[in-house]
């Protein structure tokens, strides 16, 4: 038949044997929960390597807290609370809310960027949990929220802020801020999974991020707002998170606001996590 065949038939038989040996591997029909967690942590490691190599990706949680804390405190301090020192207990928790929310926006934008990259094509053909490439970066971003909230507190303390809640209160506030960041990140993760381009995701995320931060009690007491605005600011989960951070850091008390904040975060997760997972799976 053919004269160009490169391998003699005997060789081919041997290959089939080798092949069968390879196929003796145990084939799983699905990914177990343990494997999903392990894969998520591996992809979280990948995301932290990326952060280390591209330090500018951390500007929003490093430079911004320093800059904004000083700026907002000195500009608004006198007007709102009479003095900078009196304003710090109000503005520091407010800025933590704002910085963490900014960090959340980056979560969605970076997910979108990641999905356009070649390495994502490989994730798609690997036998891994479909959710892991989404969950991994979200776990790694916990570090970003931690940096953002810790640095904001540190800047405040350097400027004369003395949190009445003590070390425990501040730590509690940081933990709450990290959890809130992770919860609210689902909103922007969803944008990341439905948006066509990273720029588009960034645009729509900022449009949502600004009202969420400014239409809250982050910078001014809501009592000064018109009724309709106040109605929104009072139900805004960001307001509750900031109130909860204030009560933890300033008074060291676990008030009802902490409960409301947790509930608000849970509600955001309940709505946006399934949406994100669904549209992400469609692309995986």
């Amino acid at each position: 038949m053919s004269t160009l065949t490169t391998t003699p038939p005997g060789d081919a038989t041997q290959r089939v044997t080798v092949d069968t040996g390879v196929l003796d591997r145990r084939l799983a029909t699905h990914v177990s929960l343990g494997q999903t967690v392990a894969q998520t942590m591996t992809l979280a490691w990948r995301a932290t390597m990326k952060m280390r190599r591209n330090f500018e990706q951390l500007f929003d949680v490093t430079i911004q807290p320093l800059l904004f804390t000083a700026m907002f405190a000195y500009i608004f301090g006198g007007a709102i609370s009479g003095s900078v020192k009196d304003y710090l207990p109000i503005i520091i928790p407010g800025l933590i809310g704002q910085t963490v929310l900014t960090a959340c926006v980056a979560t969605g934008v970076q997910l979108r960027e990641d999905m356009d990259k070649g390495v994502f094509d490989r994730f798609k053909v690997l036998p891994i949990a479909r959710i892991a490439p989404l969950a991994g970066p979200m776990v790694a971003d916990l570090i970003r929220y931690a940096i953002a909230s810790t640095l904001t507190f540190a800047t405040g303390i350097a400027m004369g802020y003395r949190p009445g809640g003590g070390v425990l209160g501040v730590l509690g506030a940081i933990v709450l801020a990290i959890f809130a960041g992770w919860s609210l990140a689902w909103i922007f993760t969803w944008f990341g999974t439905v948006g066509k381009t990273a720029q588009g995701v960034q645009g729509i995320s900022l449009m949502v991020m600004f009202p969420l931060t400014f239409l809250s009690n982050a910078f001014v007491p809501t009592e000064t707002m018109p009724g309709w605005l106040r109605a929104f600011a009072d139900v805004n989960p960001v307001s509750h998170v900031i109130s909860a951070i204030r009560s933890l850091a300033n008074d060291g008390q676990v008030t009802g606001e902490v409960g409301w904040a947790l509930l608000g975060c849970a509600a955001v997760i309940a709505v946006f996590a399934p949406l994100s997972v669904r549209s992400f799976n469609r692309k995986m």
Partner: protein
Amino acid sequence: MHTNDTLAVHAEGLVKTFGDQRAVDGVDLQVRRGEVFGVLGPNGAGKTTTLKMLATLLPIDGGRAEVFGHDVSREGHVIRQLLGVTGQYASVDENLTATENLLLFGRLQGLSRADSKRRAATLLEQFDLTEAAAKPISAFSGGMRRRLDLSASLITRPPLIFLDEPTTGLDPRTRGQMWETIRELVDEGCTVLLTTQYLDEADQLADRIAVIDRGVKVAEGTSDELKSSVGRSSLTVHLADRDDLVVATTTARALVGEDPVPSPESRRLSVPLERSEQAVDVLVALREKGIGIESLTVQKPSLDEVFLALTGHAADSDTADSDTADTDDSDTDDSTTLEAAS
């Protein structure tokens, strides 16, 4: 479709539609274990789309496919454990070093940290990347990326490897290295399914070839079978004496029943052959006439001619046909395709 144990890939009537367009329109493929199977076709023919469906990257719109007896549509997770896929573009992480990339993919597929490290070191060695192991991918050349990409597909030693245009965009030397690597894979017992738009690549590597054009399989067989199915061989004799050319031409014409093509300047005569054995008849007849021959060659038609005969157009003339999943190769130099095949 009954499960066939000897087949690595068994596809029947595969269909993929993008809007109104049928990018893949009823393709059957049977890839045997341990062979290199080439899917040859121009840009936009549906090669990549076919491969993506088989790799669970695109849903199958019609027909069905099995990989080692596992249904591609229903057992995606099983399929992904059996496959290594290397696409046209390096799918590795730009932010990581070569070693870190291999560690990442090893760990993701359940290898222990130690095993991942060992396997990464072995693969980097095998692919001649040890010196670049700690360098960021951004410093890699095209060929190095391609090799790293292929090694990333091999971490768990998958029995079946899909190579989507493995040498598109590579310089000739790097292409040759890649071909060597692919041959080594087969020696290790892998089954390879590769797509290519280079006729000589299919000729060099593939045990069997399916020619795909506009989403339809137009031919299948070994390189030789394809060549003899359309083209004819030809005998070229280099005569000792130019004056014999006329007699030689008449003699050959009488035997094969067709007009030989003489080239007086180079004292050559090209005789079309219906069957290869006719070459002997022609040579015997020439000797009987006392015509001296300096050298001779028997040539099979090139795959290029095969392609032209099968599809009615040359291998590279179909770039206008858009296939949304297969348009990535626009950077390919079309002239290379023809050159390489001649």
